[in-house]
């Protein structure tokens, strides 16, 4: 198979501006049979190729059962993502994937699900939230905790409001810096941890965001009696090949692209506690 690393042509079917720097591309493979065969699980990622510029790993945020389109929510921060931001409906790009291991949805069934995200970390987790809300009977309580630096950074405010109206669903949002219209907490997201309605014995935690935030969150959750093996973290490292070969994503002995990006906390405990690993 010489096609291991070869992208497939895809088309931008819809484009949504989420914030001044965050946008969602809704995509479809140009080859219909390729599109029909494409399957992913929440938490997995694709490599997006911008013609003549390069590739970048981005998690899939849409629902795995939606077979019409798959979505990528992207923050324009590097040269490739800033370039992707310029794509319009009808434009083409390359896609290969999906890669990695997604969230432990099977393990989560029948348990309370606590989702903690920071910054744009919410993107990989939104697919899980959608997944759970659409299959509500399979899960216990759903607690969604999201922290942002600045109130303006929160995307999908409308979705958070909507989720907060669902039964057995608690939404806790915080911004380090608020603004006049900010309806949620101003301060550290970890301030809100005491308000979480969770039963530590039957809770599964899925976390995504800056490593510093995840370190603190893990400590607080352990204090509340949540077991190490009940916490799952989506890690981020440079990924260039996505198949465990290029070596950039190494996190101790793990290849984040292949062994992750979602890891059980017990597996990466030592590594997470050290900076610059």
């Amino acid at each position, binding site marked *: 198979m010489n096609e291991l690393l070869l992208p497939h*042509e895809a088309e931008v079917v819809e484009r949504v501006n989420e914030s001044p720097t965050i946008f969602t591309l809704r995509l479809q493979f140009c080859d219909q049979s390729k599109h029909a065969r494409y399957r992913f699980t929440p938490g997995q990622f694709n490599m997006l190729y911008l013609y*003549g510029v390069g590739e970048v790993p981005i998690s899939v945020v849409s629902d795995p059962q939606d077979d019409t389109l798959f979505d990528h929510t992207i923050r324009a921060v590097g040269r490739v993502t800033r370039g992707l931001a310029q794509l319009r409906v009808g434009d*083409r*790009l390359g896609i290969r994937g999906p890669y990695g291991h997604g969230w432990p949805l099977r393990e989560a069934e029948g348990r309370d699900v606590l989702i903690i995200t920071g910054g744009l970390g919410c993107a990989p987790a939104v697919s899980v939230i959608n997944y759970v809300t659409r299959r509500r009977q399979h899960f216990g309580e759903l607690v969604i905790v999201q922290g942002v630096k600045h109130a303006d950074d929160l995307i999908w405010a409308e979705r958070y409001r909507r989720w907060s109206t669902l039964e057995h669903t608690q939404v806790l949002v915080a911004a380090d810096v608020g603004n006049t219209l900010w309806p949620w907490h101003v301060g550290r997201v970890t301030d809100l941890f005491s308000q979480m309605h969770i039963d530590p014995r039957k809770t599964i935690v899925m976390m995504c965001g800056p490593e510093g935030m995840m370190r603190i969150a893990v400590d607080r959750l352990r204090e509340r009696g949540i077991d190490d093996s009940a916490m799952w973290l989506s890690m981020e*490292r*440079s990924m260039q090949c996505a198949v465990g070969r290029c*070596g950039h994503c190494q996190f*101790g002995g793990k290849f984040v692209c292949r062994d992750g990006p979602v890891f059980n906390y017990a597996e990466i405990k030592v590594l997470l506690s050290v900076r610059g690993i």
Partner: protein
Amino acid sequence: METGFLPRGRFQGLLDALHRAGYRCFGPQVRDGAIVYAAVSASEDLPQGMRDHQSPGYYRLERTSSLRYFGWANGPQALKPLVFAPHEVLWRARRLPDGGIEFSTEPPSTDKLAVIGVRACDLAALALQDRHFLAAPQSDPHYAARRARLFVVAVHCSDPSDTCFCVSTGDGPQASAGFDLALSELDDGFLVESGTALGAGVAAALELEVVSAEARAAAARQIEAARERQHRRLPSRNLRAALFANLEHPRWEDVAGRCLACGNCTSVCPTCFCHAGIESPGLSGETSMHARAWDSCFTQGHSYINSVTVRSDTRARYRQWLTHKLGSWHEQFGRSGCVGCGRCISWCPVGIDITEEAGAVCAGAADE
């Protein structure tokens, strides 16, 4: 399997047999003051009588009156550049007039290559690169193509350098596996062993002589001498626990003060596999080429994500290299990533010695 004795005067017969079998032959040659692998067609191309002097950050050749072709320790190259190319085009993209993008794969190399003079350390390294690039579910097509057409003529190492420590890692000086043919070089000729049916086939064409008991004993003696000559060693073959227990050891800061973070160690390392994706669009914009190129955990780009460099200083980069090479390799490949070739010591411009650094960080560590 021992197949016989090849008198020195008939060494050309081996090259001819390989050529006849359709192989391009690569062998050691002196180039720009070092022994490197390059195309050979005649035995005169080989570095007869050459010997090396190596020490941390130092490499020099000296011509002697010895008749031997292989009386030296490894130069800067391993087999790595011949199977995992320093720069390799993976695929191409073409912009179509309607805005579409057409992708095409780059056909892998179909060259049949025979490499002569490969040492035990480099065979151990090749086995590790095989595990990395050929791992399921999908092997790397470019590596796999080169690897499948590679014929290895090993030479048991008789002359390790001051920087060699393959005895300590258990990978040499005698080649034990991974070769098609293996040679023990004596003054008057070569003991020939075959390791594969392919190798036995080539050996059969050489009309080898019967090996004398003296020759066999001499070959064994020189391996023993090579073993005894080595004085550097790692504290243990498995330093994983010791390294990961010492991630905040002051030695990391100390070595960072000496390290140039230039990436020479990772480039000459026969097992380092990191590579970067490189996009090269043509000026017209109508086509673009996607390649991979050797990268190093000592570069800033290696750990760069979303405007953050995870390993921003040399302390973190050197720690990444050493903890991976001697530590997390065990987790990934079931053994250390170091085969004791000593290249990272000789070819480090400032002569940093991996055995010394590992010794300092893991002082007191015993085998796990």
